[in-house]
């Protein structure tokens, strides 16, 4: 049950020129949010951007005591640039929480899971990490980026999961191991790590590689996927991906969190 409401900008925290956290008043979306949910945000009344933009709800938290939704955003174009510039107090139309969240209710405290993040894909894993920690479920983080600046929210992850459970990889080796996040994960599996499920969010190449790894290791996965979206709630049919059963499935409604085994990676 999603809500279409107007939420105020509470704070914008910039990490570097390309990354920031946007905090909006939680409204009635906050209490309804589960890890993996996303929201559609209208970046102002103008015509550019025209459509709302989709963002994972990175966390439900507070700003100076006020209940807040946190979004972690990477600037890639007009909408993500516009969202970075709103003054505190500006009301923004927000639709959420949307989509199918990560499956976590079937986990038990003895379970151990993996969180795999690539670049801005960290966003939905923040609230997931906090929720799992609260439920006493052990989780290993594998987090990769082009360089150090791509690695965001490190303190939070290490607080939630324990720093010994957080491993990083960067293309240039500026933080953690030089290479891809999937190398980290392969290495862990080779080292005998076993997981009840792997939760992942990142760019398509990461998803492809990870989907193969999980299939080979016969591990379950849940990927928070992306696609261009016009509506966010299943009516424009614009956000589809090809599924193994031959259908096109809407990422906004049947996803964003889907089992990689259901996706037809060859046609994507």
């Amino acid at each position, binding site marked *: *049950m*999603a809500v*279409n409401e107007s939420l105020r900008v509470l704070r914008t925290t910039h990490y570097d020129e390309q990354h920031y956290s946007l905090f909006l008043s939680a409204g009635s979306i906050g209490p309804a949010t589960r890890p993996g949910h996303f929201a559609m945000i*209208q970046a102002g009344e103008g*015509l*550019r*951007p*025209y*459509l*709302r933009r989709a963002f994972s709800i990175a966390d439900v938290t507070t700003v100076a005591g006020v209940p807040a939704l946190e979004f972690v955003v990477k600037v890639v174009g007009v909408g993500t640039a516009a969202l970075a510039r709103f003054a505190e107090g500006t009301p923004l*139309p927000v*639709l959420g929480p949307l989509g199918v969240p990560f499956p976590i209710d079937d986990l038990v405290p003895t379970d151990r899971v993996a969180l795999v993040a690539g670049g801005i894909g960290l966003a939905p894993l923040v609230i997931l990490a906090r929720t799992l920690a609260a439920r006493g479920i052990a989780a290993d983080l594998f987090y990769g980026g082009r360089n150090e600046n791509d690695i965001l929210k490190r303190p939070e992850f290490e607080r939630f999961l324990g720093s010994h459970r957080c491993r990083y990889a960067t293309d240039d080796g500026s933080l953690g191991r030089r290479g891809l996040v999937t190398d980290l994960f392969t290495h862990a599996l080779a080292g005998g790590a076993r997981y009840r499920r792997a939760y992942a969010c990142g760019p398509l190449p990461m998803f492809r590689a990870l989907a193969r790894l999980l299939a080979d290791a016969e591990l379950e996965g849940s990927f928070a996927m992306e*696609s*261009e979206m*016009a*509506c966010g*709630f*299943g*009516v*424009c*049919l*614009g*956000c*589809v*991906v*090809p599924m193994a059963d*031959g*259908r*096109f499935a809407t990422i906004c409604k049947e996803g964003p969190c889907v089992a990689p085994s259901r996706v037809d990676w060859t*046609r994507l």
Partner: protein
Amino acid sequence: MKVDLSTPFGRLRLKNPIGTASGTFGYGLEFAEYLDLAALGAISVKGLSRRPCHGNPPPRICETDAGMLNAIGLQNVGVDAFLADKLPELARLGTTVIANVWGDTEEDYVAVVERIGADRRVAAIEMNVSCPNVVKGGMIFGNNPDALAGLVKRVRAATAHPLIVKLSPNVTDIVASARAAVDSGADALSLINTLVGLAIDLETRTPKIGFTTGGLSGPAIRPVALRMVWEVRKALPKIPLFGMGGIETVEHVVEFLIAGANAVQIGTANFRDPSLAGRLVKELSVWCADHGVARVSDLVGTLKTRPRPDHFFS
């Protein structure tokens, strides 16, 4: 001041002139949490085909300046699933339902309307004629008055429902299309469908839409839509018209009514704000009250135009 929003529309009488456009409103039910479906004048559901259709491979949409391109490929659950799984609930909610239909051949269209048959839960049938005629080598039905006339005659013979033909704007003479449809038995017209457009990803040098071209919708096309509504209204003073194309505000709604639309359909704007259509119904009666308009139907076709000057040389 009490404002009468009821809208005579051929054999139909709509609660008000605010409808929603096919393909931008799903099967209606998806919007139940954002507005009161029964409060709308009508909803046109996603284009229905005789069999379920998978649609086009992605990418299917991209944003453009003041609009978007789409090539969904008419993905839909098929007319049978619609009648079985969606229509009962829509009827229960008191929704005025317009079944938007399409096909690759005349037979496909006929098959869909025959499945709907005399079902009274469907208020009207809206034909999307912006589809390639696979038999006639992919020529768009709606872009050729003869093909359009032939198609409409076949469908007209197959249904007793009010028949609305939704015109393609990608034509030299929208009035010729309108006449062809009306002379072939259409009870009403919807205009406009999307303009064919293209957008390119510079890095890959590929179209941003997998299908290459897509349908342009949104505020960008409003002036073209409004012009076509006015042209058709001038030529066919009595035909019921649904106007659509970039409508986002109550002022836009009134603009279309003044140009000659009896009612409007909200399209792409439903994506920006799923509650919009419901709010526009309320805002329209406020606008009418503020402007001393007792019956919204009094606005229809009231555009005052000036005589057109010839070129004046010295």
